[in-house]
């Protein structure tokens, strides 16, 4: 019923999610191989954001399985097949392996950029402060913000904040990174710097699942593009195929609406 392929980092199988009576996800499955960059696209309300939030259990699911590195994520199966949520401590432990970047950055406003990055490695992984600081400075350099270490988030631009947020997630040395519309809240002129950092990350072989409206990024960086529509995965394939020869009529309809606005990446 599920693959035990060692190269699979994320396996989501038949995910069902509803808010009350409203079905958001109607059985979405996705497998992500190590080093693969998967871009989720689809109209607003298609469930793509909800789907990646389900992967690291920021949303509870009503049905389906999630595995990260082959380990079931957050849920244990009862003998009768029903799911029971795992303990808070176990879920917290499992979340360490998945980095998440949010649309609204969600940096800790009472900490400097550097403190934001070392917080979880010290508090959660128990790494020594010296070691965490060294790694953090290296990550800040990687995202091009070595000179902003002591700045508080309120003193940084949106693009800079998002790059700090990416560094913060990377500080946990995650197996995979989830990006939830990382450039949607940014001023147009700072979108490029964030996409550039993400592109570098992809080139370094990070496993990534990206929800975005940046079709240029999808076309250029994605190994695979996945199209969601009304809570269902309607089509997936390499970007050239999806963008030049989409097979599903709803994909064609969606792309015809967004492609005139493709921004250069």
């Amino acid at each position, binding site marked *: 019923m599920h693959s035990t392929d060692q190269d699979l980092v994320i396996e989501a199988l038949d995910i069902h999610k509803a808010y009350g009576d409203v079905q958001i996800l109607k059985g979405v499955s996705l497998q992500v191989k190590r080093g693969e960059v998967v871009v989720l696209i689809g109209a607003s309300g298609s469930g793509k954001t909800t789907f990646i939030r389900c992967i690291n259990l920021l949303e509870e699911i009503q049905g389906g399985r999630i595995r990260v590195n082959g380990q079931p994520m957050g849920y244990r199966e009862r003998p009768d097949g029903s799911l029971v949520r795992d303990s808070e401590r176990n879920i*917290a432990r499992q*979340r360490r392996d998945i980095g998440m970047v949010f649309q609204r950055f*969600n940096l*800790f406003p009472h900490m400097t950029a550097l403190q934001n990055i070392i917080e979880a490695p010290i508090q959660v992984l128990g790494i020594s402060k010296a070691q965490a600081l060294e790694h953090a400075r290296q990550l800040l350099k990687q995202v091009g913000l070595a000179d902003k270490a002591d700045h508080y988030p309120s003193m940084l631009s949106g693009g800079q904040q998002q790059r700090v947020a990416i560094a913060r997630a990377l500080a946990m040395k995650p197996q995979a990174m989830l990006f939830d519309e990382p450039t949607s809240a940014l001023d147009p002129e700072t979108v490029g710097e964030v996409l550039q950092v993400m592109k570098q990350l992809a080139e370094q072989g990070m496993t990534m699942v990206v929800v975005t409206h940046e079709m240029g990024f999808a076309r250029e960086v994605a190994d695979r593009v996945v199209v969601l529509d009304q809570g269902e995965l309607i089509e997936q394939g390499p970007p050239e195929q999806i963008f030049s020869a989409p097979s599903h009529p709803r994909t064609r309809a969606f792309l015809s609406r967004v492609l005139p606005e493709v921004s250069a990446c």
Partner: protein
Amino acid sequence: MNFNWDIFWQYLLQPSDVYLRALWLTCVIAVLSMALGCVLGLVAALMRLSGNPFIQAPVRFYVWLMRGTPLLVQIVFLYTALAAGGIFRFEDLDLGWVVIPGNLQAAIIALGLNEGAYMAEIMRAGIAAVDKGQYEAGRSLGMTFGKLMRRIVLPQAFRIIVPPLGNEFNVMLKNTTLVSVIGVQELLLSTQMITSATFRVFELYLVVAIYFLLLTTLWGFFQSWLERRFGQSDRRPATASRRLFGNYTAKLLRGR
């Protein structure tokens, strides 16, 4: 007008030992009651935010009870009525180096219990004002609830809580006078005792008023220092939300 300047200046500038002890006691009661109130308030706020109706219910009841009855009645009830009913009697507590009288214990507990109800609402508002994205960021980094609260949420909530907390302590300083009814010799009761011997009521009550004014003014300076100290990192957004919440909580507290 019957006013003796000599007596006024004498009591204002050369307070007797009894009076100084009373001043000390007022401060001790206020600080300890406030500390108790903060602890109770935090626990109550976390219980209120738990989402579980069975955990919320006792807190709702507690807040309802404490805010719905006069503080003076609560003080007398806890110390005098419970003892008279044969339910509980506060005994003097001998710690070896200091004896804590029963009425002082009752005073601190009564004021602290009352304060806890108000602090619960303030802390609930402060914690609730922290953006949900902060919880998600913390959780996605693998933090457990305790770490998330201690490291991420409470430090941010604290900045929102400081202004109303300062107001609460100001009120607390003045409310300590109420425990004079159970015989705790703080500033008001000491003043009453001196006036009953000297009959200089006008002068002495003016002096006690000035002493309280001094205490609350000093606290006011400390409070603005606190606000500057804890608003530093995130000046722009924090000031805005702090102002908003200061006013909001102040609104909640009106009518006391």
